[in-house]
């Protein structure tokens, strides 16, 4: 089973990298770009077949290491096994 954790800076925390991306998009001529936020995606393969247990484990991973909850939020998705 595979899990995907998406980590984003909390709303209200300054995101200078997101701002730089927004600025660069404007410089490239893209119009109508509002706020841009940059985060990170972490995919984890787990030796676990129960989705609920997998999610509980990955949430603990996120709390302890993957996200710094002082400044970041995270979202956990359990991905269906790939066919084949």
């Amino acid at each position, binding site marked *: 089973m595979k899990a995907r954790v998406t980590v984003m*800076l909390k709303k209200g*925390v*300054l995101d*200078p*990298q997101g701002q*730089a991306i927004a600025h660069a998009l404007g410089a490239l001529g893209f119009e109508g770009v509002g706020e841009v936020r940059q985060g990170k995606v972490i995919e984890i393969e787990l030796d676990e077949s129960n989705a609920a247990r997998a999610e509980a484990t990955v949430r603990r991973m996120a709390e*302890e*290491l*993957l996200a*710094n909850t*002082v*400044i970041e939020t995270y979202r956990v998705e359990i991905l269906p096994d790939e066919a084949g």
Partner: protein
Amino acid sequence: MRAAVLVFPGSNCDRDLAEALERAGARVTMVWHKDSELPAGLDLVAIPGGFSFGDYLRCGAIAAHSPIMREVVRFAGAGGHVLGICNGFQVLTEAGLLPGALIRNAGLKFVCRTVRLRVETTATPYTCAYSEGQEIALPVAHHDGNYQADEATLDLLEAEGRVAFRYLDNPNGSARDIAGVTSANGRVLGMMPHPERAVDALTGNTDGAPLFAGLVAAMADA
């Protein structure tokens, strides 16, 4: 005074920090991150600058979960003194020994220059050899030194006199110009500027020397 300087893969200020402590009269032991015990009879754990574990995931995040840091958290909990400089400050926030977090510099650039600071309190063993409000200059060298915490935490730090140093010309966007903060008991200090790089007139600046001299003197009196 007996001090331990931690060494992680990617630490690069560890020997400078040991040198600065030794010049002030401390006996220093280097401690590898995989060690599971601190030397006995220790007065201070010092966490150096650098790029521990390549700054992977978040600066200081991997180091904060290394075996030796479990001991450092226990040491601090028992009233031990812990000094974290630059990457060491990031490790201390990631380990939960200091509040807040250090994020990417507001200007996005790596900032490497000497900055002016104001000593905001002399009521800590780290700042007791300075005078209150004294202006000093120390080098900074970091990409992620932008100190952030929620408003309530910042208010608490101010009210409790836990802002040790403040930037006079904020180089990185830190909230309320904060360059260094202490724990509630004043024994854990994290700061982004590098006092250990300013202890010898030969390299142009000795403004960092009183931090180490004061610390060793405070420990001797304790």
